[in-house]
């Protein structure tokens, strides 16, 4: 069975027909070609597929695509500005070595963004608690936590999403 859903994706209004059994991860990667969201374990353990739905970090591998109806979805593709200006979190991950192979990075950055939007001044313990569902096999986590800390230390009040104004497929 298929269902018609309307939702927002990285600021763009979307209207499309999705199969009932599609996960949000499938919708993003296979149907829309947005391969920035990664599939790691596929069972909600690793956090590589993390996206933000209505301000909350979720595992897109377990989230049914039909359930995004009426919701606002943010993926890693929606973070940078249209001109390529990196989001402060992306910039900080680059500058502080929070990225090695890069596979966990989109999930790490989106989980961090959801955290900072909710709590702009988290303690180190709160950062670790918020990222406990994101596994990284390269960095040992220290540079990742440092990357987030650097954004907090810069005191950037506006960590909010820079909506990319690309052409909308729906209207």
């Amino acid at each position, binding site marked *: 069975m298929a269902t018609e859903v309307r939702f927002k994706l990285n600021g763009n209004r979307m209207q499309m027909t999705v199969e*009932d059994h599609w996960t949000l991860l499938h919708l993003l990667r296979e149907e829309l070609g947005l391969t920035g969201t990664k599939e790691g374990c596929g069972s909600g*353990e690793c*956090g590589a597929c993390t996206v933000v739905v209505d301000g*909350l970090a979720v595992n897109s591998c377990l989230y*049914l695509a039909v359930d995004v109806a009426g919701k606002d979805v943010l993926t890693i593709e929606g973070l940078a500005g249209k001109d390529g200006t990196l989001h402060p979190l992306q910039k900080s991950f680059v500058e502080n070595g929070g990225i090695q192979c890069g596979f966990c990075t989109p999930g790490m950055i989106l989980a961090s963004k959801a955290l900072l939007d909710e709590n702009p001044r988290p303690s180190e313990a709160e950062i670790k608690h918020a990222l406990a569902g994101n596994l990284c096999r390269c960095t040992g986590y220290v540079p990742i936590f440092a990357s987030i800390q650097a954004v907090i230390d810069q005191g950037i009040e506006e960590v909010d999403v820079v909506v990319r104004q690309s052409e909308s497929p729906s209207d």
Partner: protein
Amino acid sequence: MRKFAYLVPKTLDQAVSLHQSHGNRAMYVAGGTDVMVKVKSGKITPDYLISLKHALGSPQLRVNSDTGELHIGSLVTHRTLETSSTIKRHYPILHDAVQHIGSVQIRNVATIGGNLVNAVPSADGAIPLIALDAVAKVYAGTGERTVDLIHFFEGPGQTVLAPGEILTEIVVPKQPAPSAGAYQKYGRREAMELPLIGVGVQLSLEQGSNRCTKARIALGVAAPTPMRSLAAEHYLVGKEITEETLGEAGKLAADESRVRDSVRGLAWYRREMVEVFVKRMGMKCLERIKEMGA
């Protein structure tokens, strides 16, 4: 992934009738963090997933000011419980437990009702609610019935819910004052992990003293279903709560537990940890009651 149809009934009656017409080819789903893992792995093969998201209405977490009862709608997420100041202040045993279930990503989606219905022996959500004497409200199509949560579980993955029945709400009765609770999920790491053992202690004291008026000691992974140690509870009532009496209660709880060997840990070790954590959580209850009074 195997195909299924996703049905979103608007009312509980519609949900029940859909479940009846599709029989065992259908399955209820709420947050889906357990169901989807099982569907993806092929462990279950439903043709229909019936979402309860609309039928159960918007998730409610509220204290009834007349009765003092805490009402937790089935669809309330673990994250909502984790971040609720009411839960943190008045039901710390529940706050202790939910903050270590899965990850933020899981807790943002996974519901307390789903956690209970899933009925794994390690149900971290169930142990503190049992220690709080919670009651489950069940919609049966013909009406509503209530079940004490301690009697809700029949075995691993088995609850008293008949096919088609829906868990709608958890009600926690008003606790006698002063009281507090604490829960320890004990495992190898704090997140994304099933516990080796789960220990919840909820104590009520006499006003102005450390004499225990009511005790609840609930254990997870200590038996095929969540259990209470009645021996330890009976022992504590009427006694001064001290390290010594809590140590004795820990021994009684360890003896009463029906722990077993598994890949996560051996029975003898689990038994020792029950003893250790009953005492430790009991001391934490004392500390918390003092903080509340301060």
